[in-house]
């Protein structure tokens, strides 16, 4: 993952170039299906097209936060068995969380716009909306914690603990519509329940989820590589600074 051929293609490899091309094609097709091919809804009209962005975005955010938690747990409990001290897991946790926050942000923006035309309001403090914005803010906090300058291992441990605590909110967000009365509708699709969604819309939603997953995977791989580069730069800068100071001292002595 750290192979970097030259500065123009710093975080890209042949595999990620292929993945990136597939992601671009998938997004174009998603736009075509979501905006042109799929039908308008009998009640919501054209506004239903927000479904194909809003729902996949939050699923990808959930998935990214699962990856962050899993990697954080491995970093905390398995790092001593790895030659790199578990920093691979730390990087994976950080990159997935950042991509998760981007898609949680997309969920909030698309949800607010969708709410304006269907509910008649951008925002209400119901249980689903409140827990979702809390999820967004919590993971922003996690990303801020990752930027606090500290020893990489100590910083990684702090971040991993916060990641595991933050994840508690993910099932709360998902089940909030079942546990409390909300303005937000119940889950569009759930395991073991017949979907209340017509065929073309159902397949467009599933396809959009696949397309957004490919985009998110590409982003996570690249962000992982950038974190590795940031670490290399920090280490190199620090070593150079220490070496220059020691040389100065030696010269003065």
């Amino acid at each position, binding site marked *: 993952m750290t192979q970097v051929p030259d500065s123009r293609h710093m975080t890209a490899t042949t595999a990620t170039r292929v993945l990136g091309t597939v992601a671009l094609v998938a997004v174009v097709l998603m736009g075509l299906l979501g905006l042109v091919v799929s*039908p*308008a*809804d*009998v*009640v*919501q*009209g054209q506004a*239903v097209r927000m*479904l194909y962005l809003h729902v996949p975005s939050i699923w990808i955010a959930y998935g990214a936060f699962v990856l962050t938690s899993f990697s954080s747990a491995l970093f905390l409990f398995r790092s001593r068995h790895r030659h790199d001290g578990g920093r691979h897991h730390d990087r994976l946790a950080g990159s997935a969380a950042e991509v998760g926050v981007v898609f949680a942000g997309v969920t909030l923006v698309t949800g607010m716009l969708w709410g304006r*035309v*269907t*509910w*008649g*309001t951008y925002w*209400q*403090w*119901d*249980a689903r909306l*409140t*827990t979702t*914005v*809390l999820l967004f*803010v*919590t993971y*922003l*906090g996690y990303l*801020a*914690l990752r*930027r*606090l*300058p500290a020893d990489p291992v100590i910083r990684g441990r702090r971040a991993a603990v916060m990641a595991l605590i933050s994840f508690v909110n993910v099932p709360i967000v998902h089940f*909030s519509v079942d546990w*409390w*009365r*909300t*303005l937000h*509708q*119940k*889950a*569009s699709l759930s395991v073991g329940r017949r979907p*209340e*969604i*017509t065929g*073309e*819309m159902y397949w467009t939603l599933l396809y959009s989820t696949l397309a957004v997953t490919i985009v998110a995977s590409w982003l996570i791989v690249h962000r992982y590589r950038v974190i590795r580069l940031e670490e290399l730069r920090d280490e190199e800068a*620090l070593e150079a*600074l*220490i070496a220059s*100071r020691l040389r*100065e*001292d030696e010269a*003065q002595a």
Partner: protein
Amino acid sequence: MDLSPRHEVEKPGELRQKVHRNRRRAVLAATVVLIAAAAFVTAQGLRNATLFFRNVDEAVEQRPELGDRRFRLQGRVVPASVDSESGVTTFQIVHGCVVASVRHTADPPALFASPWIPVVLEGEWVLSKVQTFAGIDTHYFLSDRMLVKHTNEYASVNEQRVSEKLPQGFFNDCPFEVPAADS
């Protein structure tokens, strides 16, 4: 000549601390702001989220406790009851075999036109004798804010379904008849 005590900074740990001090302060400030934001959101949530609305049957039962307090009322709009005159929309909503008469003083959202659409109304009970499909009632609900609570059902406009589907058995065992949608 540089007279600053640079030779005192010998250990890499100390040097790292000095290099990162300003950045740490900035990030700490950002973290404090984020924690404050999280606290605000949680407070809002605890106040509002757990009982976002009362269904019609509960709100009618709780009239003595509610008095003239503002609250949110949820029910499905009876399509045959909707009438609009000089900026006031009157209609009836139903839930749990209880009907309430509503006077809404603001513009309803566009989806309100969809038959049997569930709505959440903000307002209060007003003492006044009114006629509903279920009989005579002692109060009507005066509302100035309407939110349409659309369901998780999606169907193509090309299909035959023209209205919001009523849940199966919605009017089962109700002691009154409600007229079907006009459309």
